[in-house]
């Protein structure tokens, strides 16, 4: 069976979902994640587009993206490349500019986030007319594969400190697998000032401040790159600093 993104009939309600996929050196993962996304959307008859924001990857990710565009159609695969590695917040701004969907999904391109959860996000969003649905690794049937005890401990302590200080009302603050109503995402991005891990945290904190409704869906997170990205003292210091800034400024 193959899923080549046929022009299926529009689903009732006319909702369209724009997936924002920032990429940097994802030559190997990109085709697979696109294949999985197309399969999920086609199977569930969801109207979609996937916006690839490549930061001039030296490994030729953009060339692969162009091949995928030929395969699946330029109405489904949209390319919004940038000149260099410019950070996540601006990637979202850049990607959202020409997004034609009324909903936006943000996720990682390295397959730690599985597209199979997207229909669940959509279902929860519709059931409660939520502004935001976020995946959580820490409650219910959520979980992580590929972390050793030390990494799990770091994650738990980090989350505990963040939750205690910020009282965010969500269980997974640093998660980046989320569904937003497009205007909600646009408003949040313009309000957020942090970078890195803290960027995703600040999005949730601001969302609460603005009174947006947030729902959670447990997700499984398969980390295949842990071991390549070290959690050094520097990163921890930056995290705590960012966290304290949020505590002091919001």
């Amino acid at each position, binding site marked *: 069976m*193959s899923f*080549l993104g046929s022009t299926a009939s529009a689903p009732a309600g006319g909702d369209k979902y724009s997936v924002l996929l920032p990429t940097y050196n994802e*030559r*190997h993962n990109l*085709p*697979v994640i696109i*294949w*999985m996304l197309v399969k999920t959307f086609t199977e569930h008859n969801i109207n979609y587009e996937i916006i690839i924001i490549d930061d001039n990857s030296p490994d030729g990710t953009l*060339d*692969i993206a162009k*091949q*995928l565009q030929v*395969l699946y159609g330029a109405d489904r695969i949209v390319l919004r490349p940038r000149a260099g590695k410019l950070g996540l917040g601006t990637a979202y701004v850049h990607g959202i500019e020409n997004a034609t969907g009324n909903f936006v999904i943000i996720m990682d391109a390295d*397959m730690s986030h*599985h597209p199979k959860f997207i229909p669940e996000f959509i279902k929860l969003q519709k059931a409660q007319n939520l502004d935001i649905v976020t995946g959580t*690794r*820490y409650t219910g*049937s*959520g*979980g*992580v*594969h*590929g972390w050793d*005890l030390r990494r*799990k*401990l770091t994650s*738990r*302590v980090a*989350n*505990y400190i963040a939750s*205690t*200080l*910020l*009282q965010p009302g969500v269980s997974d603050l640093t998660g980046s697998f989320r569904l937003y109503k497009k205007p909600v995402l646009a408003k949040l991005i313009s309000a957020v000032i942090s970078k890195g891990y803290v960027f995703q945290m600040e999005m949730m904190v601001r969302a609460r*401040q603005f009174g947006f409704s947030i729902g959670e869906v*447990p997700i*499984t*997170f*398969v980390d295949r790159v842990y071991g390549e990205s070290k959690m050094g003292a520097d990163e921890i210091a930056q995290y705590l600093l960012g966290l304290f800034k949020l*505590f*002091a*400024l*919001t």
Partner: protein
Amino acid sequence: MALTKLVRFLLSTVTFFSLWLLALNEAIPVPEAVAEFLPALPLWIIVSFGAYSLGSIGWSLVTFGDCEEAHRELMKEVAQARDELRRNKITIDDE
């Protein structure tokens, strides 16, 4: 303008300590049983919070969800995807 979390925390802490000091110096009436315990109250709060934190983190660590199954399924899907993509002339090279 709403108060920041830091300001609210500082306000609560200052308020608590003021009340505590007043109670210690008997400027506020306090029942006998409470009066004995009063000097130790701040320390008790800190220690209790510490114990609660450790317990909470320990518990969340022990109940951390693993997803072996998800990993296996993903590996299978990845293999299937790569095959199909190769057939459709997408460049799939090995890492």
